[in-house]
């Protein structure tokens, strides 16, 4: 996908940002108040308590000293891992429910990281549950594990769907391992991942017809069902009702598409009541452009200017078929947005000053955030060639208005200049108080990894490093 092959790229050459790089806000936006980690910690504690509570019925219902044989011990371990797996599955779905309160307290990036870590644990718990239970039951009946599988599938109700659920879960788990995931087309991976809702459905039955702690009517069973209902309600709210309300309220449409560089475009959106849109610079939405080719795809892009009452803007690098199609968007096209999400914002700072490191098109959230950071921030902008520098007029204007120092570091990663600068010593020379600043990083994975390593060695605590990654 090169510039010369796409006619759309040249369509609007010469048009620069039509607002001359000025923010449309009448006055510079205020620095947002800080959002502490309180909400996140509370939720983490709640989830942990839930985990303990889900194993508690087993603990109370199992007489002490009853696990005298191998079979009984294995079966008991199978039950514990089963309860843990059932609970973690619900947590996993809840994480991805896009419930506004979760997005606000934990943030999309953190949620994605939790989802990945809990996902790995869930996979192990399910495998342990299946194998421990199978081996335990087989031992109990003095038959082989395979024969036991046959017995379970034949004689027990809901077990066929439970085995299917476990199979899907294993498939989803393994295709999410990074190396395997990269080899798959995104759409296939996404489809596979969507099938995990089936796990919720197919795995439901066997928990209640065979779960030793759940088949009996009582508070445990009721609570477990209530948990399911709660998660489904969260899904409905976060995925259907909240987005519907958002889009009916703000009614976003494409106003203009502007070329920022040969392979980058800015899309300006207008809508209604934008003055009441609560959005922070650096946050992202999941965008769905309602044209014939694009409506079925939803992609996360950062907003590249802070909230103002008149327009929203996203700046997108053309890297694939979908982003190429965005070049041809006609003004007036309806846009379906879900969000805003993300904790890559000025509100999540823990220090008074910030250092921002952007790579290539990673400047977009940072550009939006610059408008809201307290004065005295520093920006290092890495780009391969001068032509890759985006939004430079706006950055220069912001540098003046918000008292920000900006260094453009141009060149390949292996050139001596960038290499020297992106080392711990280089960073300390450029920004002597780097260890006492928040550091916001957005750019290609290589740059981010390298920078985090250098920053950690330069003495920046982990909690002061903010990453903008919507990918796992």
């Amino acid at each position: 996908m090169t510039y010369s092959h796409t006619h759309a790229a040249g369509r609007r050459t010469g048009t620069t940002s039509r607002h001359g790089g000025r923010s449309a806000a009448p006055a510079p936006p205020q620095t947002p108040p800080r959002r502490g980690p309180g909400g996140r910690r509370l939720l983490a504690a709640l989830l942990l308590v839930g985990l303990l509570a889900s194993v508690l019925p087993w603990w109370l219902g199992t007489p002490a000293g009853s696990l005298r044989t191998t079979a009984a011990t294995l079966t008991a371990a199978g039950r514990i891992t089963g309860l843990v797996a059932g609970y973690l599955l619900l947590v996993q779905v809840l994480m991805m429910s896009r419930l506004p309160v979760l997005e606000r307290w934990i943030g999309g990036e953190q949620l994605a990281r939790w989802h990945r870590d809990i996902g790995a644990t869930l996979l192990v718990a399910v495998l342990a549950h299946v194998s421990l239970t199978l081996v335990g039951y087989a031992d109990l009946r003095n038959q082989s594990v395979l024969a036991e599988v046959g017995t379970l599938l034949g004689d027990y109700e809901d077990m066929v769907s439970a085995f299917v659920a476990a199979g899907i879960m294993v498939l989803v788990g393994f295709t999410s391992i990074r190396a395997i995931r990269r080899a798959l087309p995104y759409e296939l991976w996404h489809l596979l991942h969507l099938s995990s809702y089936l796990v919720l459905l197919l795995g439901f039955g066997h928990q209640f017809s065979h779960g030793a702690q759940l088949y009996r009517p009582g508070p445990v069973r009721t609570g477990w069902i209530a948990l399911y209902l709660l998660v489904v309600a969260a899904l409905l709210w976060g995925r259907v009702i909240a987005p519907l309300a958002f889009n009916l309220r703000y009614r976003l449409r494409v106003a203009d598409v502007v070329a920022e560089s040969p392979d980058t475009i800015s899309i300006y959106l207008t809508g209604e009541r934008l003055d009441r849109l609560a959005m922070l610079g650096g946050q992202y939405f999941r965008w769905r452009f309602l044209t014939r080719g694009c409506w079925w795809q939803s992609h996360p892009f950062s907003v590249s200017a802070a909230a103002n009452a008149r327009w929203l803007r996203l700046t997108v690098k053309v890297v694939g078929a979908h982003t190429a199609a965005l070049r041809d968007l006609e003004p007036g096209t309806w846009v379906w947005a879900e969000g805003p999400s993300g904790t890559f914002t000025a509100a999540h700072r823990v220090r008074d000053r910030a250092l921002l490191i952007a790579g290539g098109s990673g400047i977009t959230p940072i550009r939006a955030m610059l408008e809201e950071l307290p004065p005295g921030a520093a920006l290092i902008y890495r780009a391969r060639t001068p032509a890759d520098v985006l939004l430079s007029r706006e950055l220069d204007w912001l540098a003046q208005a918000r008292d920000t120092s900006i260094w453009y570091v141009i060149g390949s990663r292996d050139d001596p200049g960038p290499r020297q600068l992106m080392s711990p010593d280089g960073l300390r020379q450029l920004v002597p108080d780097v260890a006492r600043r928040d550091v916001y990083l957005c750019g290609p994975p290589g740059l981010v990894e390298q920078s985090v390593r250098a920053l950690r060695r330069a003495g920046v605590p982990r909690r002061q490093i903010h990453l903008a990654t919507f990918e796992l």
Partner: protein
Amino acid sequence: MRRAFLAITGLAASTTALVVLKGSPGTTQVAQDLPAAQPVNPTPQGADPSVAPAAAGDPAGAAPKPSVSAGAPASPKPSRSTARPSGTRTTAKAPTTPRTTTKAPQPTTRRVTGPGVDNEYGYVQVQIVVSGNRIVEAISLSLPSGGESDIHSGDVRDRYNGTGGEVVQKQSANLNTVSGATETSNSYKQSLRGAIEQAF
């Protein structure tokens, strides 16, 4: 990924710890948990008014106890639990008994005992309490005992027996098999079928 690794290690360690803790009978803390957990089972029996007539004639909740411990100790508890838990149970039952005696006599209540069934794990025999055309309670007079059978017999008992168990819910011998206790479930159903045939 570091956290995922920690979480998985934590899962393995705590599962092992839980199983080991429950596996050792000597722990005092565990022994204290037991009586606290037990009343969960008898409460629905005592609370349900439909038991009342049966309880009046012959304390239904207590009935299986002696016969079970006389025939073969089937419950997982009797071997360890002393007189204390069963004592609390009878005292808990006491207030309900006078209340039922004041009630008007209900339609005839019969007890029917099914045939005993042998399987490779032990002996199974079921008794049902029938009031009018309904089974109001199911009692297992004997279930296999010893080793893991204790657990599975416990599962079968918890699931099928009582005034709110599956037998009363389904009013038939078409019960779902209890996981890990296929043989005992089948024997239970066989004995129950016999009892139902005699009763109706």
